[in-house]
């Protein structure tokens, strides 16, 4: 499969990466080169093969329903949550105004 410039632009938009026209043009052959190469996977006969879900035989562990059982994974740490915020006001993260 291959991509054209329109597809590249669409993917960039889906991925929220602003790209210029030139960048889009440059990405087309680059991505096609890679996609053309991965296309060889189509040769593999995978009939009856399950897609891998867990690379090691391991069972999903779940937690007990306890609040803040481990401080590293619990709440009540607003200062830590906001410590790196580019824009924090009144305990909130602030972002450019969204009109819904």
């Amino acid at each position, binding site marked *: *499969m291959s*991509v054209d410039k329109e*597809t*590249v632009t669409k*993917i*960039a*938009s*889906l*991925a*929220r*990466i*602003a*790209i210029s026209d030139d960048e889009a043009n440059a*990405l087309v052959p*680059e*991505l096609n*080169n*890679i*996609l053309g*190469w*991965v*296309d*060889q*996977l*189509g*040769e*593999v006969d*995978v009939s009856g*093969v*399950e*897609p*891998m*879900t*867990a*690379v*090691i*035989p*391991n069972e*999903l*562990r779940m*937690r007990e329903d306890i609040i803040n059982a*481990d401080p*590293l*994974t619990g709440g009540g*740490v607003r*200062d*830590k*949550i906001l*410590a*790196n*915020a*580019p*824009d924090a006001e009144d305990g909130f*993260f602030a*972002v*450019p*105004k*969204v*009109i819904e």
Partner: protein
Amino acid sequence: MTDITELGIAAIRDGVASGDFTAVEVAEAFNANVAAASALNAFIVETPEIAISMAKAVDDDRAAGKDLGKMAGVPIGMKDLFCTDGTQTTAASNILGGFIPQYESTVSANLWKAGAGMLGKLNLDQFAMGSSNETSAFGNVISPWRIGGGNNAPLAPGGSSGGSSTAVSARLCPAATGTDTGGSIRQPAAFTGITGIKPTYGRCSRWGVVAFASSLDQAGPMAHDVRDCAIMLESMAGFDPKDTTSLDLPVPNWQAALNSDLKGKKVGVPREYRMEGTDQDILDSWDQGIAWLKDAGAEIVDISLPHTKYALPAYYIIAPAEASSNLSRYDGVRYGMREVPEGANLQDMYAATRSAGFGAEVKRRIMIGTYVLSAGFYDAYYTQAQKVRTLISQDFKAAFQQCDVILAPTTPTASFPLNDKNKDPLSMYLNDVFAVPASMAGLPAMSVPCGLNKDGLPLGLQIIGNMLDEQSVLNAGLAIEERAGFTARPDKWW
């Protein structure tokens, strides 16, 4: 007195424990080497004060007669993919510029608990995506190795753990953490003449490690020799309830069980790894490795891993797919860089931030990942790749019916000059062709230095083990190490 910075983990630990030198002396010695090596660009952040204060704590413990940890007094370099509480962590990306984690990764916390200290945060390929360290936003690391004979072209230290490989090889630290998603410990270890092991997926917690591709990422040690790797891996590994893919198993005492006598062991040699484009030097080193393991008592068996050829293309679907999603959190809202062009709305802010913050290779992989997951392509790419991954895993399972470990080259070439491959992503990707299959199957794999090529550059041999069988990997690695007698060192030019 010996130069402390020539010593590895075991020697430093033992020297500190016996009082030959103090942990602070050790830290000071390495701090000095780090400070003098800015030309290598191995560190993004240097933390000499932290190294000293952690060393002091060890010295105090020793003075107080307390039990010392497995790595007490050993200062290490921390790949800047591990979040360190209070110390900037960037994954070598501008998008995490200035990010100060308020938490400590499980692996680094385990190391500190074992008495290790931190010399600084090591440079790497941006978000661990790369094989030459050229994708770092902080400039590439330069390998301490040179071809010599007047050729001083800067060489790639390998990637993504290129800061780690360079720092250990150049004696800036006795050991360093690495992470391996598709060869990122083994390939740089091979390029710089050091030893590195990626354990079984799930041995080391991923909690607090900046994610690249969740189903593949695994941390491991990079050090001078096999014994040091065993000691350090014991300190890093262990069950972590915060990571559901972490294995709930005790950490074996690998170091104590090291044994290079391979009598009764079978070593598989996969015929599919004899690939076109592999350097003759590499093929020769492989034959040499086979001879060494035979000499160690092992029986050599010819094995087949029929889907080897497809591991790399499958990897370049799965890893970018997972990465495209894992990296969605870098959006300029809660931490890191934020770009808000005049009049931008929220979605514009995302696009501008991510465009400015991510490097070209990261963007390329996000684009590929986004594409292969998008409507209409998901089954053809992602599902197909995961099926191929099952087949790769089954290949290994079948192979380990016939042998205990697998011997292969780590890389198809020795280190290459910087700028050589970064124009062509595909040629860069192909450098991981031997490393990726073990990653895809979650298996333990190690690179051990085995000699120099005709240019005088180090080469590594790779040992791949069965699930959870790090011991056999380490033992075979030790057998090679003992026979290779690898003592070559880069001449100090920095």
